[in-house]
């Protein structure tokens, strides 16, 4: 079984868990993801691998509590077991030949951006990390990013952490100041990645965006995760999750990500109410 060995709250809406999954840990690489189910009646949700330890046989996941399943997951504790945990799925981040890279993360996407930054740093790549959050309470992995980056810029929407502004403001400044990147890797909300890609296109910097669409099986079977890249339909689960950011149809991806928003909102509400009831009766 896939035991939760460690649970840590990174901020009020983001939780880290270390899961016992030796087979997955043996193969995991940054950029890949897993799919889990909390219980026998649960939905399958994909989460990008935040870290792995091949010797201990563990996988670290970091998730934002946004829906019914992440709510349920967050109510599980150390010692509990996940019902299902499969991976590593998708393709690993390509790191060959890179010398200087800007890693641009937003919100909980930073949890996925961090292992990429770390791996590049370990490979001797000069990493500049630009991370953005809404406010200081939501900042995660700041020290970890600092340790893996030659340059680190923290941005917040309201200016309560780091500089006030968007990650694109900071990235533009770095580029304008003469930093020459072989590649920009961006992971975060779709709208943020869309604007990061629009910016790097202006400067002709190759850019990779990590997509996290709705999916079921994660092995190429359902096609639910399809997106348009350079006019062609791709499956994020097997062709990605990382794609050439300059070719992704972000508007379509944003529309698709909203397919079940109403259902998800209600399911999350129901789950929250359920936990409130349980709390009351306990």
């Amino acid at each position: 079984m896939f035991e939760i060995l460690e649970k840590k709250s990174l901020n009020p809406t983001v939780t880290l868990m270390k899961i016992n999954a030796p087979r997955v840990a043996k193969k995991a690489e940054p950029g890949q993801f897993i799919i889990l189910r909390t219980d026998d009646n649960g939905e399958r949700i994909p989460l990008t691998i935040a870290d792995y330890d091949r010797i201990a046989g563990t996988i670290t996941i970091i998730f934002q509590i946004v829906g019914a399943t992440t709510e349920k997951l967050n109510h599980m504790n150390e010692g509990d077991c996940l019902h299902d945990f499969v991976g590593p799925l998708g393709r690993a981040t390509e790191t060959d030949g890179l010398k200087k890279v800007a890693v641009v993360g937003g919100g909980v996407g930073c949890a996925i951006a961090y292992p990429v930054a770390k791996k590049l740093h370990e490979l001797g790549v000069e990493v500049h990390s630009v991370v953005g959050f809404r406010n200081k309470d939501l900042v995660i992995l700041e020290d970890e990013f600092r340790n893996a980056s030659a340059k680190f810029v923290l941005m917040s929407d309201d200016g309560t952490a780091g500089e006030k502004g968007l990650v694109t403001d900071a990235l533009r400044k770095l580029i304008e100041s003469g930093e020459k990147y072989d590649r920009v890797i961006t992971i975060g909300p779709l709208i943020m990645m869309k604007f990061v890609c629009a910016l790097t296109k202006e400067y002709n910097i190759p850019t990779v965006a990590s997509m996290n669409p709705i999916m079921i099986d994660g092995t190429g079977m359902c096609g639910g995760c399809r997106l348009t890249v350079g006019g062609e339909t791709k499956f994020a689960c097997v062709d990605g999750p990382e794609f050439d950011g300059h070719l992704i149809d972000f508007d379509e991806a944003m529309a698709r990500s909203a397919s079940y928003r109403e259902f998800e909102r209600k399911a999350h509400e129901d789950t929250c109410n359920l936990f409130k009831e349980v709390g009351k009766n306990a």
Partner: protein
Amino acid sequence: MPKNMSLTKNEMPVQAPDVRNKNFSEVALGYTEEQAIDEANRCLNCNNKPCVTGCPVQIDIPAFIAEVAQGNFEEAYKIITKSSSLPAVCGRVCPQETQCESKCVRGIKGEPVAIGRLERYVADRHNALAETTSEKPASNGHKAAVIGSGPSGLACAGDLAKKGYDVTVFEALHVAGGVLSYGIPEFRLPKSIVQKEIEGLKALGVKVETNTVIGKSVSIDELMKEEGFETVFIGSGAGLPRFMKIPGENLNGVYSANEFLTRINLMKAYKPDSTTPINAGTKAVVVGGGNVAMDAARCAKRLGADVTIVYRRTENELPARAEEVEHAKEEGINFRFLTNPVEITATEKGWVKGIVCQQMELSEPDASGRAKPVPIEGAFSEIEADCVIMSIGTSPNPLIKSTTSGLDTQKWGGIIADENGLTSREGVYAGGDAVTGAATVILAMGAGKKAAAAMDEYMQNK
């Protein structure tokens, strides 16, 4: 008991169409004991057993039917399971009308013996009896891996286990059964039956490791080099959905049949307490004419949609089983023939609004031997829809090919294997849809059994 010379089969009781099209319970209810014995007495027990030649796994059909006629149902079960690992499944989903029953002498004048319904009766009766009674055979010390827990994998695993092999089946999803679990709907094949058959295999000693994606979690090379598996059977099926590559296919509300059916069958999205959403809309259009299209259409109907199947040829060319088409029609599914989608239109919010179709006509037969549909110039119409389900076929998943050294495949992705299932890699066998492209449950089982025999020989002579 005298022979029953009735020209027609005993009808199988079914749920009434306007009742069943609102629930997911099984449509066909199965014979009673009386009906089964009566039907068994229609069999003439021919000496040359033509029916057996029509069975991909060569069940001794007259022998099991003779036992049914005598009321020896357990004996009948034993005869069937000598050849088939999944009788309750095959009794339901085999296209008997083109296989065993097509060869039945009684079919020359009148209807053939209802072999499928009898198989189903025998298996269900056995399964209802009690706990699985199969004894675990003595181990012969050899290890074999089976990739995929669909029909070919289960058949292969069952035959190897019966011979004493230590068999592990690897399944990518969280539930075993492959297409039997994620694809074929509950109302045609109850999932409890699939699980019961799998429990039967486990009782024979077969291990099933779910949540393991071969090629990602572990590779075939590693299974053989590091984990001590002497042979591997690839029964990974044809699970990659095809799309038409027409504008609007990525709109919200457009599904592959695989996704639509997986949400419903595997994830139980039709149940009110499911955490997996499904949107069948109010007007659903299913594109395609195979069994999967019928399944998708009938599911959408049960979820409350008004459903239309569009197919580019005519009713005569429908690849689906006649029985499935009949059931679909009875349940109120509409059909639009000679109709080929060219574009899916969108609402302002990026949802499906309709599907623009071109009117077709039939011309000369194409490579498949079926009359080729050609467009009638300028003849377009739009069907209103808020859900579109693409059911135009699947291809083998490239994952295993791309992660297994020296495994040769066809251009279209099918694994190349000889008549015994041997691939271009020593000790690696393959069968079922992964080799042939999408076909039937029973053909896949036949391939799994053949490969099991070849794997047995290989391991014994190594």
